C-alpha cells in the first residue's frame, strides 16, 4: 500500500476509532471484541481502499462497513458456538445453559483434534477470545494465530461428522 493511501487510512482511523469502538462495545459488550471489530473494519478499508477513497463520503462508508463487520462477527461467532454445542446433544444446546463438565464428559475432543487445537477452539469459540488476546496468550502474531485457528477449525470439521 502506498504512503498516500496509508496516510488517508491513518487520518480516518484516528478520527473514527472512538466512534466505531463505542458502537462495537454496545454490540458485543466486550472491549477486546470491540477493538477487534474496529480493526477488522480497517482491514476491510485497506483491502477496499480504492472504493473507500473514491467514495463521496468516506466516513459514512467506514460507518456502514463497520456495522456490517460487527453483524458478520456476531453471526460468525454464534454459528461456531452452536456448531460446537450441538455435539453435546442431538439438538443444539442453548449456549446460556452450557456447562463445561457436561461437554467434556460427552465427547473427548482430542479424539478429533490435537490438545493444542482444543485449547485454541475452546478459547476462541467458547470463551469468546479475540484474535489479539489469543495471539498474546500463545505468544504468537495475530497472523499466525488466525492461521492456526483456521487449521484447527478445518481439522475439527473434517474429523467430526455429527
Amino acid at each position, binding site marked *: 500500500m502506498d504512503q498516500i493511501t496509508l496516510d488517508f487510512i491513518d487520518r480516518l482511523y*484516528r478520527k473514527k476509532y472512538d466512534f466505531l469502538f463505542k*458502537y462495537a462495545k454496545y454490540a458485543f459488550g466486550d472491549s477486546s471484541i470491540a477493538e477487534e471489530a474496529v480493526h477488522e473494519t480497517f482491514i476491510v478499508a485497506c483491502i477496499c481502499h480504492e472504493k473507500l477513497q473514491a467514495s463521496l463520503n468516506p466516513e459514512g462508508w467506514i460507518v456502514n462497513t463497520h456495522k456490517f463487520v460487527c453483524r458478520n462477527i456476531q453471526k460468525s461467532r454464534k454459528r461456531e458456538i452452536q456448531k460446537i454445542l450441538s455435539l453435546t446433544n442431538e439438538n443444539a444446546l442453548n449456549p446460556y445453559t452450557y456447562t463445561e463438565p457436561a461437554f467434556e464428559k460427552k465427547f473427548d475432543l482430542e479424539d478429533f483434534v490435537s490438545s493444542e487445537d482444543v485449547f485454541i477452539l475452546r478459547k476462541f469459540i467458547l470463551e469468546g477470545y479475540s484474535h489479539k488476546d489469543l495471539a498474546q496468550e500463545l505468544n504468537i502474531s495475530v*497472523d499466525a494465530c488466525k492461521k492456526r485457528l483456521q487449521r484447527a477449525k478445518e481439522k475439527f470439521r473434517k474429523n467430526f461428522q455429527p
Partner: protein
Amino acid sequence: MKKQNLSKDKHTYFSSLSEQELKNLLMTDFQSIDGEILTAEDIDMVLGIILEREKIAGIPTENNVEKSWKFFVENYLPLAEQDITLYDYPTNSFQPKRKEKKKIFRVKNIAAASLFFCIALGAFSTTTNAKELFAHMANWTKDTFWFSHSEEPDVSLITEFETAFSPTEIPEYLLPTWLPDHFTKTIEGGYEQKTEIFKKILYENDSSPEFFNISVSYFLSNPTVIYEKDAGDVVIYQKDGIDYYIMSNLNTITAIWKVDSFECQISGNIEREDLIKMIDSIPSL
C-alpha cells in the same frame, strides 16, 4: 440550507434522548433484519452525541488511539496487504448498498422492542425534512412498538396516555394539567414488552427550537432504571408527598417521579420555571 436544517432537526431530536435510548436506537438498527433503520450519518450523529456527553462529564476514554494504530499497522496491515480478513464474509460483501428511499418504514421482526423511536432510512432527503417524515403513519407490529404523528385537537394528558395503558387506569394525580403555551404535540410513540408498557409524546414550540417530551412507563416488574445527568446536583422537589427528582443533562432539564408502578418523566430544553409549573399543575392525591 434545507439539508442543514434537516440535520439540525435530527440532532435536536437525538440530543433529547438519554444514553440508554440512544444505545437502544443503535442496537435496534444493528439487530434489524429487514435492513437499516439508521443511515451512516444518523449513527455518526448519535455516537457523536454520546461521546460528547462523556467528554463533558469527564468520563475517561478507555482507548489509546495512537497505540491502537501502531498495533494495527504492525499486526493487521500485513493481513490486509495479503487481502486476508480475520473473519469470512459472503462474496461481494463490501459493496455499500444504495439506500432506497422509503416513505413508510416497515418492520417485520423486532427482537427487543426497547426502542421508542425510529427514523426511516432514506426518507431524509433534500426534499423532505424531519417533520414531514414524522407526519407519516408507521404501522409497526402492534405488539411491539409504534409511533405516529397526529393532528388531533388538544386533549388532556390523561386522555392522551390512557389508551396505551388500558385496561390499567392512569391515576388522576399522575400527570400535569397545564402545559406551556405555544407548544404543539408533534410525535408520539411507544412500545409494549413483557416488563414494561411505555409511551412518550414530543411537544415542540411553534416558533423556537424549544421542545419537551412527556413519557410514562408502567412497570410490570421491578427494573433498575438508569438516568443520565451531568455534574449538576439532583434536586428533589416535593409536592403532595411525591418526590420529583429534577436534574440537568447539558442543555436539557428533566423531572422524574414515580406513583405506584407508573414512572413519569418530563425532559426538554424548556425553562425550569415552566417545568415546575407543570409539576405544580398535577392534581393532589
